[in-house]
């Protein structure tokens, strides 16, 4: 592509659009189905399928630990994996702002392509629109993921049962704090990185060994606290969390206390909550800890019959308090 910036023409459907697709997108998304350039993709799927869609508007578009391209893959692929499915296909719609530097677009598309390859998913169809300057912010990406369900009874937010163990696959709050600390106007530079990562391999490993996992959820926007509340509500059970067992990195703790934030409400993009029968908790933990993405996995609590719909935290002193749902936005546009 010769132009240094994205022009309105690239969304026209004419020659310029074709150049963008042919020269840029197809060189990074190497799926035969996409290369056919038909109006729709033909997929070969049998049995129950999981589908999830998500739009990515994160600002800044490049951040320590990732960028909007890889995030658009990880976010959607992880959502599909949480249903106990093997993610196979991805659709990808780009909304570009006129004037976006071509180099930025290329970097994002390359990162998206690499993340899709690494996740084992094929980008099979897509769309590109260009908005006049000021009517979109740099780049928005929508992806839809499709995957094949691998277990008899898929994990679901309403399956937490009293007595189940609650695990998390690693430290909380890394992504949210990273994005916030990168925001313009915040003279704050924390030694933190986004945890953006594809979790499907680890999830499949876990499900292969322990097919009776009751709940899998990735605590993205709203963080651990919000997601646990959702699960408690869906399952009509309580969650009792041990505050002292929550994995939070020292740098995240420090950054949060500086900015007056609670890491338990910050987004994660490479972590998940796993709720399963107590008897399988130790086995799950050793599988998780054996994988780099789960090395800080911890058991953080128990599902209870008391306090249905609520998440209760036992503090290190032995006192109790509620861990409530996040009210409104703590941070805008973190994913």
């Amino acid at each position: 592509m010769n132009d240094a910036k994205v022009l309105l023409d690239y969304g026209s459907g004419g020659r310029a659009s074709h150049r963008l697709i042919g020269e840029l997108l197809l060189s990074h998304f190497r799926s035969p189905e996409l290369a056919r350039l038909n109006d729709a993709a033909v997929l070969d799927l049998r049995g129950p399928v999981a589908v999830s869609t998500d739009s990515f508007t994160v600002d800044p578009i490049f951040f320590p630990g990732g960028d909007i391209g890889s995030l658009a893959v990880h976010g959607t692929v992880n959502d599909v994996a949480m249903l106990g499915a093997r993610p196979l296909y991805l659709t990808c719609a780009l909304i570009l702002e006129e004037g976006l530097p071509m180099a930025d677009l290329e970097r994002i598309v390359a990162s998206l392509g690499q993340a899709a390859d690494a996740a084992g998913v094929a980008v099979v169809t897509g769309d590109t629109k260009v908005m006049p300057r000021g009517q979109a912010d740099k780049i928005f990406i929508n992806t839809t993921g499709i995957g094949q369900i691998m277990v008899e009874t898929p994990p679901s937010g309403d399956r937490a049962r009293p007595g189940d163990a609650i695990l998390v696959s690693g430290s909380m709050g890394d992504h949210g704090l990273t994005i916030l600390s990168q925001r313009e106007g915040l003279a704050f530079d924390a030694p933190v990185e986004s945890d953006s990562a594809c979790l499907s391999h680890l999830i499949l490993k876990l499900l292969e060994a322990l097919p009776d996992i009751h709940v899998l959820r990735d605590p993205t926007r709203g963080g651990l606290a919000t997601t646990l509340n959702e699960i408690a509500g869906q399952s009509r059970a309580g969650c009792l969390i041990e505050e002292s067992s929550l994995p939070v990195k020292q740098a995240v703790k420090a950054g949060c206390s500086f900015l007056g934030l609670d890491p338990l409400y910050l987004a994660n993009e490479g972590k998940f909550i796993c709720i399963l029968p107590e008897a399988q908790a130790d086995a799950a933990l050793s599988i998780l800890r054996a994988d780099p993405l789960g090395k800080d996995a911890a058991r953080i609590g128990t599902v209870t019959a008391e306090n249905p719909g609520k998440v209760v935290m036992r503090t290190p002193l032995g006192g109790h308090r509620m861990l409530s749902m996040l009210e409104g936005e703590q941070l805008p546009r973190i994913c």
Partner: protein
Amino acid sequence: MNFLDKFRDPELCRRLLDLIHKESKGVRFMEVCGTHTVSIFQSGIHTLLPDNVVHLTGPGCPVCVTHDREVAAYLELAARPGVTIATFGDLMKVPGPKGRNLKTAQADGADVRVVYSPFDSLELARKLPDRQVVFLGIGFETTAPAVAATLKAAREQKLANFKVLPFHKLVPPALRGLLSDPEMRIEGFILPGHVSAVIGLDPYKFLGDDCGLPAAITGFEPLDLLQALLFLVRQKNTGGHEVVNQYRRVVADAGNPKAMQVMYEVFEPADALWRGIGTIPGSGLAIREEYAEHDAFRALDLTLPEVPPLPGCRCGEVLKGKMRPDQCPLFKKACTPATPVGPCMVSTEGSCAAYFKYQLDA
């Protein structure tokens, strides 16, 4: 062990809690700092105290004590053409007359910018020379010195389009005001850590000398708070009325004279309106004559509008510690953090919001 973790050591905390349980013959204490409120709820201390140690949450959050008339005043300013409001984020949702707030003002076209420090708003004034940039000066002695320093910088740099709307409040006169209410039955105070780091110990001495009450400046970790509580329990038992500084690792007895000096160079004490309490003499800060051109009141010809009280809000009684938030008929019903009726529900440090967020049986 990391330095802060020492002040959370569960074993030490439990020992203090045991002593409090053993020795307490009953004490009603009030904490007057939003960060203490949150800390007490977050650590679960309030669920571990004996029943006869009664915790009252006082007017500890600057947002919560901002009066409806003050809210109405800045909303009026926000609606004026050519005015840009610069504010800390927690004011955005504070409800004013008819439930209007800065967010609704923004939706109606007002230019409202959230800043993280008063100096950011000075930068804004430089970038927007054609607009009047008004910083909403809300906060206790902790923020007032920084705002004063910003005003000094504005004057030095001749940024005439930078204004401050001075709604700062002072803590010690407010404590005096609270105690003059005969219905208040407070037997001891936990004094704020950050405010005290600026003003020091002396301004609180009247609590012991004139009112016969014990009080402790203390930090925000569980160990700090429990130590202060044990102190109050023991003082109560022996009829003592000492006012002490238990937060020496941060608060010097003399406070921060430099910050105080800047503050009083720019501001002078004035009467102030407190939400639900009314006027408390000498409890606010007005901008001195030399800085009049940066005073939003004088320079932009603004007066505090008269407003009808917020219907049904019991913030006044909650702020005075006369009522627990969950005893307010609107609590959790009409009034939630998403639809706050009173400002105590808006700020994360407000007592109603803390109750809503942390209290299990509320």
